[in-house]
């Protein structure tokens, strides 16, 4: 992995899409060009919250070759740790933030002959960049977005630039027959899902039951980092770091001055892999295999927590 310096970015514009959705334009603070991104990429923003600094990852929804500004869409959540609330309540045009360079753990599959996208709520964001890219390639794409009634027009407007054919916004998924959709897809179809965990689990389980191999199923979640507080004991240096209920283990380690390498901060890339010396991790990542999770020797501190009051790490 080639590391790069954080970017200084300035808020160029803010648009309110709905009471809880904001679109933010982020430009280079020195008015130069930003690094190009790729479909499905995200940036991590360093944000001030009530409980200290957070690094929140947001998918880039603007065109990959638009290097003048990145657009991100941020949902204000009730259980916000402060990051999304900061964006909704405090962020102003002209503010300068620190951001990572774009990174993607959710690539389009080059061999797919058809792409089926399923989004739930703000999970539309990485899929928007997929639709843009696939329309540009004239690829075979079918997009089903699930939304609360009030937000249907919001998502319809976001999808409008890409033409209506094959793009659908549905009011909730109770009435939608996922099985019927996944039963009739041609060979070589890949499924991409982003949304609430229950939507992603249902879509994956339905596909597996219909014979889709796991290599054709792709999902991205930005798992919630909060939970019961616990203590990390540092096996090498002997110190202790308290992890609060509103912060991730990774953030607590960083705030204590331990620079654990990280990229996606969402349990998808494996960059922050850390060895566990004692205690039982509460795994929430998508990297470790079931066997590795059961063994409990490794942990992804960006999303995972502890089942025991104390977790000793090889740090």
């Amino acid at each position, binding site marked *: 992995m080639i590391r790069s310096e954080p970017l200084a970015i300035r808020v160029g514009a803010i648009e309110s899409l709905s009471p809880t959705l904001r679109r933010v334009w982020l430009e280079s603070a020195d008015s130069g060009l930003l690094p190009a991104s790729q479909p499905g990429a995200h940036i991590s923003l360093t944000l001030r919250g009530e409980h200290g600094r957070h690094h929140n990852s947001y998918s880039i929804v603007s065109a990959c070759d638009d290097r003048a500004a990145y657009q991100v869409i941020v949902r204000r959540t009730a259980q916000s740790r402060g990051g999304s609330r900061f964006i909704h309540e405090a962020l102003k045009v002209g503010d300068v933030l620190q951001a990572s360079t774009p990174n993607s753990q959710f690539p389009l599959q080059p*061999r*797919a002959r058809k792409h089926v996208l399923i989004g739930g709520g703000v999970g539309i964001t990485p899929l928007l960049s997929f639709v843009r890219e696939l329309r540009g390639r004239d690829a075979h794409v079918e997009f089903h977005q699930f939304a609360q009634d009030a937000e249907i027009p919001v998502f319809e407007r976001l999808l409008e630039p890409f033409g209506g054919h094959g793009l659908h916004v549905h009011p909730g998924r109770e009435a939608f027959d996922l099985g019927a959709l996944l039963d009739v897809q*041609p*060979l*070589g*179809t890949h499924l991409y899902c982003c949304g609430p965990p229950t939507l992603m689990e249902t879509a994956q389980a339905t596909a597996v039951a219909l014979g889709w191999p*796991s290599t*054709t199923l792709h999902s991205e979640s930005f798992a919630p980092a909060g939970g019961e507080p616990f203590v990390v004991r540092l096996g090498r240096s002997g110190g202790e770091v308290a992890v609060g209920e509103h912060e991730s283990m990774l953030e607590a380690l960083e705030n204590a001055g331990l620079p654990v390498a990280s990229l996606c901060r969402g349990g998808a890339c494996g960059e922050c892999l850390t060895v566990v010396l004692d205690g039982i991790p509460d795994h929430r990542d998508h990297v470790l295999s079931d066997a590795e999770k059961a063994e409990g020797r490794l942990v992804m501190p960006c999303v995972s927590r502890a089942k025991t009051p104390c977790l000793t790490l090889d740090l």
Partner: protein
Amino acid sequence: MPEQTIKSRPVYSPLQLDPGGRRHLLVADGEGVAERGLAPGTAAADFDERWTIVSHSRAIPSPDEGVSEHGFRSLPHLLAALRRRLGDERMGFRLYAVGAEPFLWTINALAGELGLGGAEIHLCAVGPQARRVFCNHCRTITEGVTTNVVTCAGCNASLFVRDHFSKRLNAFAGVQVDAESPGEIPDIEELYA
């Protein structure tokens, strides 16, 4: 003699029904071949359909729905039907092939072209071991090679037949046998009968 432990050499195991799939098609390059590539406890009848090259001019696949056994007069005949079939197939399908190695990778290439991934196709090599050999120097493929060294059908080079197999080219790599020490040709052995 170059090292002959190479990861690209495909490893085959006897076939059994992939429990993840919903529709299963078994193709074989000759009569009585399919059975030789099945794991104990697996029968050809377990597969929804069996397609076999019977090398007979009167072989015609049945147009009737529900017929599970189809014969084809040749490989091109079977490939044309398979191309049509895979174009109409849906996710959940699994393809199995039993036969000589060049047959397997011809099927695999067609399946890949029509969208099947590695998890959706299962191969088992049985029968003749003769190799297709790709000349690394002139790119000619020499068919039916059974010896450790062969004369390239394109450039007449003496090629050492490596275990290095290219799935894309459906051939083993052949390299000038005396490239390091000109004139030094090892004894020719019959290895791939």
